[in-house]
């Protein structure tokens, strides 16, 4: 009897374990997808019960978008350049920033805002008890469908600006652009979620959450407009607002100083995401379940 079956059995069991992990993983993902589908349907039903309000919110967001574009139109009446950026490059930047912001709004914003409310009222208990990852459920529970309409409008403006610039993106540029936009959405979500978890310590986090809207304004400015200094350093390296929309647009408009910028955005996004996971676990441990 040779002792050979032993290692093969070990290898086999390792393979089996891996396969089991994989099936568990796909089952887990499929489970989350099923949960998400139900949540989407619920959101649709909820929105459709207040149809006028649903349409009015779309109008509000569109109006604010037009306002940003009007700002650019007025400024370029008086100058040809903002720090080497031409009119349509800035329009492309504002469109992209709006697109990223609206996709983030559609998927995450309402949920982040509601988090502090769940903590305040003690309703968070129910989320922690459900057989789903609580962070997943809290982050995606409600889908803001109107924001997709505004994201489409932003896409239209981006397309028009790109045509005005005569951009002919190479084969890999467009997928890269889309990927970077996705990273931008991730950055917005992570930062906002982290801000919302601050509500575990102070109930008045609404002020902080409101403050996030101001960060969007920073994201739409050409990063080159800022001279090196504390503000630029913080909003590049700590809170990467000056990268979120700037980097994808620079890739698309072929004015990226170095491809390292893309890696920087990706790296910072992953870094911030890791930190937010840590803050979240710390916060839940701190949770005292108010009023129950």
């Amino acid at each position, binding site marked *: 009897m040779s002792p050979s079956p032993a290692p093969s059995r070990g290898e086999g069991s390792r393979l089996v374990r891996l396969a089991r992990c994989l099936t568990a993983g796909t089952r887990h993902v499929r489970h989350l997808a099923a949960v998400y589908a139900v949540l989407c349907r619920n959101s649709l039903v909820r929105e459709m019960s207040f149809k006028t309000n649903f349409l009015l919110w779309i109008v509000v967001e569109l109006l604010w978008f037009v306002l940003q574009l009007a700002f650019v139109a007025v*400024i370029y009446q008086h100058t040809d350049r903002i720090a080497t950026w031409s009119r349509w490059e800035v329009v492309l930047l504002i469109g992209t920033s709006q697109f990223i912001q609206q996709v983030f709004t559609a998927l995450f914003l309402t949920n982040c805002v509601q988090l502090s409310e769940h903590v305040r009222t003690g309703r968070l208990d129910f989320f922690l008890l459900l057989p789903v990852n609580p962070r997943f459920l809290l982050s995606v529970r409600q889908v803001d469908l109107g924001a997709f309409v505004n994201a489409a409008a932003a896409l239209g403006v981006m397309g028009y600006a790109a045509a005005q610039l005569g951009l002919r993106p190479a084969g890999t540029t467009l997928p890269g652009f889309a990927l970077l936009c996705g990273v931008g959405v991730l950055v917005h979500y992570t930062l906002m979620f982290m801000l919302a978890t601050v509500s575990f310590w102070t109930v*008045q986090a609404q002020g902080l959450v409101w403050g996030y809207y101001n960060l969007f304004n920073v994201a739409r400015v050409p990063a080159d407009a800022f001279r090196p200094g504390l503000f630029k350093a913080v909003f590049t390296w700590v809170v990467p607002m000056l990268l979120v929309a700037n980097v994808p647009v620079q890739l698309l408009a072929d004015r990226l100083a170095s491809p390292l910028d893309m890696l920087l955005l990706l790296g910072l996004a992953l870094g911030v995401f890791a930190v937010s996971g840590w803050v979240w676990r710390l916060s839940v441990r701190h949770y005292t379940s108010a009023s129950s």
Partner: protein
Amino acid sequence: MLKYAHIFHVGLQNALAYRANFFFRAVFGLLPLTATLALWQAIFRSNPDRETVAGYTLGEMMAYYLLMTVVDALTAVTEDDWQIAADIREGRLSPLLLKPLDYLAYRLSLFAAGRVVYAAAALLPVGLFVLLHHQHGPGLPADPLQLLAFGLALLLTALLQFLISFTTALLAFWLLEISTWVFILFAFEYLAGGHLFPLDILPAGVQAVLQFTPFPYQLFFPVGVGLGRIEGPALVQGLTLQLFWVGVFYGLARWVWARGLRHYTAAGG
């Protein structure tokens, strides 16, 4: 009169509970301001051969935004419209109606109290910010008459802001959800009031149209007076028109209030 002084006092104490909130609001508000200032600095750097862009030197442009931030902190409505709408929607109006109080005066007292606390909370961040940019700091007018006119314009601006928000909030008598309307109005105020940029860089035709709306008197006018850009006959005319708009919105607020009260169902009360 004494009872409203009392309400002002209670309002102060209520608003003080939100001092941290106000502080963060003011701090976060400085972020887009910094971005806008950087944008203008970049524009001036891109045109090194020009002394002025759109009729402003760099210093004047910076001073405009800085003074605008100060005027906004002193006069803007922050929470009052939501509170008024909630009073109506949740029936909290009923106990107030039973008291010998005028709701508009009651709300105005609370607004004044809120502004005092907000200004105090914003003093540190906004003051520091203005000091940091002191080379462009908005020096207040040296002429005492101009200074007096600035004070008067500020007061009328606060009244106008309050009355417009009050009237809008009264829509809650008819609508369940007024936030969309508030934000639509806010968007117009933001552009046509001079929040985004000084209105005199707009094309002449647009400026002429804006002349006939109340929006410039909500922000652009007092800032222009404070910077000394509006003086003489234009100043007198502006103050008169500002007073006119305050009167119009006072009348409108009273009228909508009377109509709304007939519609009031005291839900939840």
